């Protein structure tokens, strides 16, 4: 009987555009289970629903860039309480929609506007901050003197990770007078502030797991024993490569806490370099539900917990206490901004 109700109710909601609060997500082409920002944003909405069960959540997947605008419009038509758009590609479409519907609340992941737009809560993350810690940890844990990273595509949201990570490695070399080499990403010399240019290894795909495995193996062949894939589900390929190789090679997961999202591979995750999409999307949704929505640009940082190195889980005992404390100090220094996380400011080994 209750089922009937929901079915009717849903119908009603569609025909006469009324009903309880509806939070909507437009995914980018990666799809809802991309193990990256789409999935995280959805998780955020699910968490929000747990907090406030009265709300309904809905998503629309985009199969190509042409889908963004109609998808957003469709949700506007359904009178969503808030529309979460995921990915920089939707920046323009979201902006246009927001301007056209000033009373519609939006949140966009991985994009920011200057000047800020009052009905868009744009969420950006300084993931190079926690990646810096990840890089330092990797370098410290490396026995071969090589660590490596690769990306899904040569775009800032990816390279910012790789960049901070490499910076962390170089910082380790500097302070510990070691020569750990970071493979897979070479930052451009003296580039403008805030840019993450460089050359590196990319799969040019966020779905082709086989490619991830190939790249991971290439890094391992060159001697890397800590791998940091920044490529969503392609990272699973890397994990497979790492597990197949064994011999103490480990990796760091990205975006989400790997031990939660990929428990089966937890045993090889030193840690995860996470990005607080889940939390911030949840907040955005809840604030919209409670009518406290406010637009503007939000920057996730180590300081505000918007980005963080995840717990060490299985490696909590393996990673020396000293190192763990060291990392905590570095964390506070990064928060305080007393050390640079630009790889360019350290010599490359």
């Amino acid at each position, binding site marked *: 009987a209750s089922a009937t109700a929901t079915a009717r109710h849903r119908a009603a909601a569609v025909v006469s555009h009324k009903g309880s609060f509806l939070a909507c997500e437009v995914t980018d082409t990666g799809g809802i*289970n991309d193990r990256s920002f789409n999935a995280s944003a959805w998780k955020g909405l699910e968490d929000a629903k747990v907090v406030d069960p009265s709300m309904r959540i809905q998503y629309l997947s985009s199969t190509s860039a042409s889908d963004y605008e109609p998808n957003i419009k469709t949700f506007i038509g359904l009178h969503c309480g808030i529309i979460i758009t995921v990915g920089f590609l939707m920046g323009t479409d979201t902006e246009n929609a927001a301007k056209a519907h000033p009373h519609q609340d939006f949140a966009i992941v991985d994009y920011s506007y200057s000047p800020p737009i009052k009905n868009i809560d744009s969420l950006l993350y300084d993931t190079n901050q926690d990646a810096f810690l990840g890089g330092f940890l990797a370098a410290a844990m490396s026995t071969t003197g090589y660590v490596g990273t690769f990306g899904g595509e040569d775009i800032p949201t990816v390279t910012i990770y790789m960049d901070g990570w490499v910076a962390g490695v170089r910082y380790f070399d500097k302070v510990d007078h070691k020569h750990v080499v970071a493979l897979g990403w070479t930052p451009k010399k003296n580039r403008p502030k805030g840019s993450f240019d460089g*050359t590196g*290894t990319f799969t040019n795909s966020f779905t082709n797991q086989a490619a991830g495995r*190939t790249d991971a193996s290439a890094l391992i062949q060159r001697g890397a024993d800590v791998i940091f894939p920044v490529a969503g589900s392609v990272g699973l390929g890397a994990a497979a490569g790492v597990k197949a190789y064994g*011999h103490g090679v480990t990796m760091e997961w990205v975006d989400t806490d790997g031990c939660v999202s990929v428990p089966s591979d937890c045993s090889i995750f030193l840690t995860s370099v996470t990005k607080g999409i889940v939390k911030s999307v949840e907040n955005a949704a809840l604030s919209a539900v409670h009518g406290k929505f406010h637009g503007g640009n939000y920057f996730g940082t180590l300081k505000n917990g918007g980005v963080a190195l995840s717990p060490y889980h299985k490696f909590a005992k393996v990673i020396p206490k000293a190192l763990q404390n060291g990392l905590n100090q570095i964390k506070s220094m990064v928060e305080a901004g007393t050390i640079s996380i630009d790889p360019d400011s350290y010599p490359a080994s």
Partner: protein
Amino acid sequence: MTAVAILGGKPAVASEARIVSAGRRRGMGIFLVLASVLMLLTFGLGVSAGAETTFRLTSPFSTAWYLAPLHFPVRETSVVMAVVCAALGLLLIVRRRTRGTFVIFSLGVVLFLWSFLAWAARNNLLDLAGMIGATLISAIPIIFGSMSGVMCERSGVINVAIEGQFLMGAFIAEIIASASGDLWLGLACGALAGGLLGGLLAFLSLRYSADQIIVGIVINAFALGLTNYLTDTLLVPYQNTLNSGPTFSPIAIPLLDKIPIIGPDVFDQNIFVYLAIVLLVVLTTGLFRTRWGLRLRAVGEHPEAAETVGIHVLTVRYRNVIWGGVIAGIGGAAFTIGSTGEFSSDMTAGLGFVALAAMIFGRWRPYGGLLAALLFGFANSLQATLSVLNVPINPNILVMAPYLITIAVVSGLVGRVRPPANDGKPYRPQ
């Protein structure tokens, strides 16, 4: 390797008197000469004197008997090799005999690759053994795919549904293995799923003589749509129960895994590699040395003739297409339970089509498909290695390498291929 051993098989070769036209021969020669120029100027003289490179023949921790890494000066080596390569090229240009053309050419290519790698890894290190391993790994699904193609097309049914059979195999294998925790059950179901799609192809194209390519294409669309749909409706909510399964772990074969260089790469792998090898041998022998193979090839070449000697054409085709599907299904399982232990939508990323290409390019022969797949795999691991070595080539161009190389080989070396005479033609008994 096994494939090479079988290459000598009389009927296989006999039915393929390969003629290299004078023009093509000259083309190969010119290619080698140009390559040698590049070798001389860039990889040779272009490198600072004293630059050394190291090719590692035994990866660390490798179970293989130890071979010391090769240290050698890049400049001198490249110059010498350039000279030899040029000589080979000229030889191809001048000589009129056809035989041995490919041997000479491949020798030249190997020299070129060698000095290219030496240049790329100058003052650095290159793990040859590792590369071979990576090559094989990325070739595995393609090998299964092309075998599946050979199975079907040798009996006269075109199978462009490999991609779909991959996807379905990968998906089913994963959820079954993940839900039951039983890898073998997962593998079996994955194979079965592929077989079912094969059965669908057979049913529609044999019973109703629908266009085989159409049915194949649509099966791909169907499999993609269905797996995406089920991913969203099942795997997302039940991620941890349905989509995080165990994976097959490597099994070392005593002694064989000690063979230097290839040992661990080939004989310390998971079940899929061994399955591929067995399949290759069985299929090659089966096709060219057994009654079964003779009959199915007859059906693919000249069904009427087969019918007049009492062979039931449609039965043979049904069987082969279904088995072909099963093989592709196993190949699909390799994506998930053979590797990452997790399904993600469209994870086969078009490799099914690459396998199709490999089959054509391998001239409808199991070992041909194998070589094509290995070439592709090699190009693949090559581009990864190069970008890790941080060579001054744009990564986006490096990623294209496997595809460009395939095109080059297909148009430069393979040329016009001859499919089974009745491939794709529906057969209606009177």
